[in-house]
């Protein structure tokens, strides 16, 4: 793990003890604890850290996309946990695997304000520093106000989100990097 971007990135708890060249599984919870359901990714990372000790590195990050490129570099499997807002019911869980050309709401040449997570992944692929495989687990939120607490539906769905990520790590078809 590079020391870069520590400002927004903290260890969420126990991290793995890595051997010489084991496959690197990195779980990153994204969000802001002071913005209600947006903190769900961070809370999931905190709950996952003890359970994944020795199996994966678990991090919490504020989500600034350019900085994330330095955080996820060289992971074999990257699991991102974030809150989402798609219009579905709060607590609904989403899972998808964005590839190098995943469509993004952001614009490639746009204002820095439109530089989003998937644009960062595309830049990382262009640089050859993208994780081998990326999986996004997202939880639908509804309450994102300043200083808000998480809504009941998100709280009730968090254990299932955590279980899904644990299962993702358990069955990850990750092989040690060659060479």
């Amino acid at each position: 793990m590079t020391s870069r971007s520590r400002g927004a990135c903290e260890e969420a708890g126990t991290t793995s003890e890595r051997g010489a060249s084991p496959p690197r599984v990195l779980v990153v919870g994204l969000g802001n604890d002071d913005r209600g359901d947006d903190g769900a990714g961070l809370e999931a990372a905190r709950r996952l850290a003890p359970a994944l000790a020795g199996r994966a590195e678990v991090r919490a990050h504020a989500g600034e996309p350019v900085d994330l490129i330095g955080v996820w570099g060289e992971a074999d499997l990257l699991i991102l946990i974030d809150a989402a807002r798609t219009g579905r019911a709060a607590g609904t869980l989403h899972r998808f695997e964005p590839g190098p050309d995943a469509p993004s709401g952001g614009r490639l040449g746009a204002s820095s304000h439109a530089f989003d997570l998937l644009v960062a992944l595309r830049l990382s692929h262009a640089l050859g520093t993208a994780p081998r495989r990326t999986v996004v687990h997202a939880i639908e939120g509804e309450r994102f106000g300043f200083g808000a607490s998480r809504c009941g539906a998100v709280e009730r769905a968090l254990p299932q989100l955590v279980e899904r990520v644990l299962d993702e790590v358990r069955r990850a078809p990750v092989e040690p990097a060659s060479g």
Partner: protein
Amino acid sequence: MAESRTLRVDALARVEGEGAMTVRVVGDRVETVHLDIFEPPRFFEGFLRGRSFLEPPDITARICGICPVAYQTSSCNAIEDALGLEVEEGVRDLRRLLYCGEWIQSHALHVHLLHAPDFLGYESAIHMAADHADVVQRGLNLKAVGNDLMEGVGGRAVHPVNVRVGGVYRAPSRADLEAFRDALERALEDAIATVAWVGTFDFPELHQEHPFVALHRPDRYAIEDGRLISSTGLDLAPHEWPEHFEERQVEHSTALHAVMDGEHRYLLGPQARYALNHDQLSDVAREAAYAAGLGRECRNPYQSIVVRAVETVEACHEALAILDRYEPPERPYREAEPREATGHGWSEAPRGLLYHRYDLEADGSIRSCTIVPPTSQNQASVEDDLRRFTEAHLHLPDDELQWRCEQAIRNYDPCISCATHFLNLTIERHG
């Protein structure tokens, strides 16, 4: 009837924030140029009223995610001026080191990800990375060093939390700072290589006549404080700002325009600092600048990318110098009793001079305040560049002219959210 042309860009790309531009051309004359700043006003000056004098460093930092240290430093300078507070030298060094981190990350982001694609013909840094992965990665590495420095000194990279009126909440030890030395030495080498790289770009011809305005100190390249000097002969202390500068509302922008002693435009930022403070640059930054083809001043706005890269060298060099001399302050901060007073303060944000003024009540609550960010002050100069560049290049087809106009705006690394007072591009050709 003269030929008319209209060029439109509804959302200007590769800038900090969102805005637009309109250019209306009738025949061979540019009739109007408007840099339209349409992000809604954010009313920071309004909701600071009645708040404690201790709050502006944290509240005004939220004006910008790229240059929060500028807001923290200018607000502290102004409030400390009002309270008659002098901070210790160790605190000054910490604030300057934090500011170096901000300059490194902001300049690295703009040079590599936002501005360089213009010169190499790419739509974005992602497209550029396919052919120039090494330089894009270098930019990301530089930005990361800046962010790390901001976190180490400020507590976190975005909206640092360690700055307070009277000092800092916690002063790191020498050993804490020494941990950044290796990364800063690599960053210095990367920054020097970046100057050499951008110095090879082809720059469109454009000569600016804008008066330069920047902070100045005789002993070092002014960043976190200094006196305001200009190419027109001004030499001012912060409290003299209101006598020489005036903000005016214009119809097409939610950012106020600024006027200096009746001059309708003046230029802040890297080119102004470089010209007015050339003698204060470190040898390593000056040598990198000369090797890249710059002289003592640079009046071609398209070469601002070279100046920005030179300032990145300066910031890395200065950060290392601070590591060499840093002595932790005896007390991280000094308390001050509130009093009825007015204070003025400023500092050099990556985009130029940022002025703050606070009127305090006897209990320390804020009666009124004024915040004047650099992008709003540079608007008139941007519009003048666009007008003159367009008039000299009317032969270009609309798509190429539009590209060059957008590039002319990016020369300023405008921070629209700071100015909010900001980009879509519309060029109209009529007649």
